[in-house]
């Protein structure tokens, strides 16, 4: 049976409560009659033979690219860059799709006698991955063959000896990227396109860039005018990356892009209730929900987190395309939309959503309050094409415990950002002008980024800018079930129950508001008409 497309439910008296993620737990909330619930499309059918599909993509590239095997020769310098652990979410069951692709590229390179091969994790300003994380992404065979010889590297955006300035775009943007990648005879980029924001020129122009280069598009102005950054054609973030990408290409960097798309088969069988519509829950789903929610509720947050972060997603490959960057990305975006797009008619006064325990920047870590902000206002709010789901001046209700918890190893600058910056102001423009430079150039944060597993000092600022468009658009943000003190520090309102939240929301949007709930997981993107 072919997968069902997305669905919009109109809530009536007999509609069961809707499931909300609530950090490391869940909430079931009865929504007002007449509300809309947007359910994502069911996972698409997977490619039956992923290995053959990858081989076929490498040998039949799109655009003006030649087959990969004809681009390889013995004396060449070959660099293979790949997306880091921030994708997909949660991490996928082994073998990771990057492993599948890179193994085939290496097989081809070995057959052609290429000696000088280096693998580069395209981190941008993300944290360095641990050995076990790299092993998970690449598999033991690749890790053992390359790590010991120093040929498995993680991009360092603060290493002047391994950065090269390729020039300025026509808008005056610096393009500075990883030197090894830029000076190779061929740079193969292996991507995982979980959402439509990923991939294309953004892979190299962001993933392998320096702070000097990134600040041209990771700023408040760009983000406010990216409506949304999940819709590349209406995103200034993407326009900037495309300008940079074309400059990189014109500077002579030869890129062979490999992009992959996955279906939304996000949770394994034991959590399959998460992906079902509530009225279709069987006895088994209800039993699994009761067992999981009770166990998670009774456990301390650190334990719940530990358990949840062990989940590996049974994602499956729905597409793999290789060749010239823009031609490849056009096909990738079509594939992503095929899986995630749901047509929605009209905006809403109030948008509700539950936020999970995981986002791109807290894999194997804590979802701190700034990441809660970013996930809600940055990612989920922006999962639209056309118009935002919620009207201008509308209210966003997020469900998340939002505790004042931080991971000092992964997110050291976040703690100072929360304590020192947010206590002063939550206005993105003021934050950018007043504080960004100090955090971005702080030697201690740079040291932790380069030698430990810390996100770059400037990263919490980017998280804040990520939500700038939503802040500009919304009348209020209410966090349901969040720690009031922490929520207020973020500049939001807190509510204990959904009815309280709806009452508060009505003071912003007026009586009898329309309400839409974004049902997740899995991910969906609203095509708002």
């Amino acid at each position, binding site marked *: 049976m072919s997968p069902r497309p997305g669905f919009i*439910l*109109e*809530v*009536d*008296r*007999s*509609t*069961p*409560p809707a499931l909300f993620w609530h950090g490391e737990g869940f909430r*079931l909330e009865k929504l007002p009659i007449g509300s809309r619930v947007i359910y994502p499309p069911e996972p698409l059918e997977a490619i039956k033979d992923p290995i053959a599909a990858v081989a076929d993509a490498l040998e039949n590239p799109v655009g003006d690219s030649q087959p990969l095997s004809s681009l390889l020769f013995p004396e060449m310098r070959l660099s293979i860059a790949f997306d880091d652990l921030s994708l997909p979410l949660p991490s996928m069951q082994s073998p990771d799709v990057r492993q599948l692709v890179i193994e085939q590229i290496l097989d081809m390179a070995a057959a052609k006698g290429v000696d000088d091969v280096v693998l580069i994790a395209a981190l941008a300003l993300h944290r360095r991955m641990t050995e076990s994380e790299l092993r998970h992404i690449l598999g033991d065979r690749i890790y053992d063959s390359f790590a010991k010889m120093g040929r498995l590297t993680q991009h360092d955006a603060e290493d002047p000896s391994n950065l090269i300035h390729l020039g300025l775009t026509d808008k005056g943007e610096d393009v500075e990227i990883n030197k090894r990648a830029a000076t190779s005879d061929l740079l193969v980029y292996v991507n995982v396109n979980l959402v439509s924001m990923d991939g294309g020129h953004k892979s190299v122009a962001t993933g392998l860039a320096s702070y000097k280069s990134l600040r041209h598009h990771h700023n408040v102005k760009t983000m406010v005018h990216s409506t949304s950054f999940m819709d590349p054609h209406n995103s200034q973030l993407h326009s900037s990356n495309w300008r940079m990408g074309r400059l990189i290409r014109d500077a002579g960097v030869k890129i062979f892009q490999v992009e992959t798309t996955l279906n939304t088969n996000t949770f394994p069988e034991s959590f399959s209730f998460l992906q079902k519509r*509530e*009225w*279709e*829950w069987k*006895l088994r789903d*209800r039993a699994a*929900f*009761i067992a999981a929610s009770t166990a998670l509720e009774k456990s301390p947050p650190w334990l719940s987190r530990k358990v949840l972060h062990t989940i590996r997603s049974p994602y499956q490959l729905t597409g793999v395309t290789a060749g010239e960057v823009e031609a490849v990305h056009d096909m990738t975006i079509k594939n992503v939309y095929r899986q995630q797009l749901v047509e929605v008619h009209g905006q809403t006064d109030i948008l509700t959503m539950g936020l999970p325990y995981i986002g791109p920047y807290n894999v194997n870590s804590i979802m701190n309050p700034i990441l809660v902000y970013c996930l809600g206002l940055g990612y989920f709010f922006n999962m639209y094409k056309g118009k935002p789901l919620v009207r201008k001046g509308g209210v966003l209700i997020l469900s998340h415990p939002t505790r004042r918890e931080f991971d000092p190893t992964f997110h050291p600058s976040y703690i100072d950002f929360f304590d020192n910056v947010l206590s002063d102001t939550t206005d993105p423009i003021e934050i950018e002008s007043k504080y960004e430079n100090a955090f971005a150039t702080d030697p201690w944060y740079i040291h932790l980024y380069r030698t430990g597993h810390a996100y770059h000092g400037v990263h919490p600022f980017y998280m804040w800018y990520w939500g700038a468009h939503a802040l500009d658009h919304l009348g209020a943000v209410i966090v349901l079930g969040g720690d009031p003190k922490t929520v207020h520090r973020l500049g939001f309102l807190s509510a204990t129950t959904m009815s309280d939240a709806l009452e508060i929301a009505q003071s912003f949007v007026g009586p009898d508001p329309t309400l839409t709930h974004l049902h997740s997981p899995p991910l969906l993107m609203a095509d708002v008409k």
Partner: protein
Amino acid sequence: MDHKAKKLTKAASDSLPGFPFAAPTWPSTVARTPKRSKLGANYDTEWSRSYPVRMVRALFLDGVARPLIKALIPPTVHGVDRIKDAPIPVIFAANHSSHLDTPLLASHLPVRYRHKTVIGAGADYFFDRTWKAALWSGLAGAIPIERNRVNRKSAELAESLLKDGWSLIIFPEGGRTPDGFGQSFKAGIAQLAKKSGASVIPVYIKGTYDALGKNSKSFTPGPTSINFGFPLSLGAGEDVREFTQRIQSAVDQLSYELETDWWTARITETRHATPELRGPDTKGWRDEWSRTKSKATKVASSSKWPKAE
């Protein structure tokens, strides 16, 4: 219901745990999709072809069914020499007079076929209850065949099993004869042979109608016979209808061979004078009517209806 009773009922229902402890209610704004039955042609018989089940079935067939058949309806088997070199898999196409046909034929197939043969059984009759479906697929190796309408699923299952090397017993009349005369063969068997490339072995079974016919009230032990014919294949340029007719004629001839002798049957065949099993063509629509009896409108059998005064 008076006001007090209503209040009590409401209080009781309020105190009951709701979703997720209770089953969810269905939103009236969502259309219900009809449940897909797991019975009939949709019954999954894969388990019945696993080695442990096959082992049990073989023991049952050789240790229980075969001795019992020999004791109660002792068969004389003819024509085994005609099929000893037939390529496996094959489709056995037999006339159908009694429920005894299946155990009789299945337990007296030559050994090279016996333990890797499945039996096409009416999906509406043998697979309409879970216990029946499990019993027939487990003990007899039956697979569901849709008799009353075209069903791609049962055709595909039979085809894939043939391609996997399983032979198949089919009763192409689609059901037991109600009156002892043969019925027209359905074209499905020829279609299956065409698609799978398997040969068809015509089989005539005699004596089971007298022992336990369709309308018999009791079982009457007595001798039976099985006559195997030469394997038939779809000829070049032959269509499915012509092949079906050829299979039916072959069964008619096997029947006449048992009535007379091999030589007489051969001579009669060359003169195109072999008598048909079907008998006089007077039944018309009753054939189909009888076959579709299971689809008759049902009224719940309850002692409350009609209500006794």
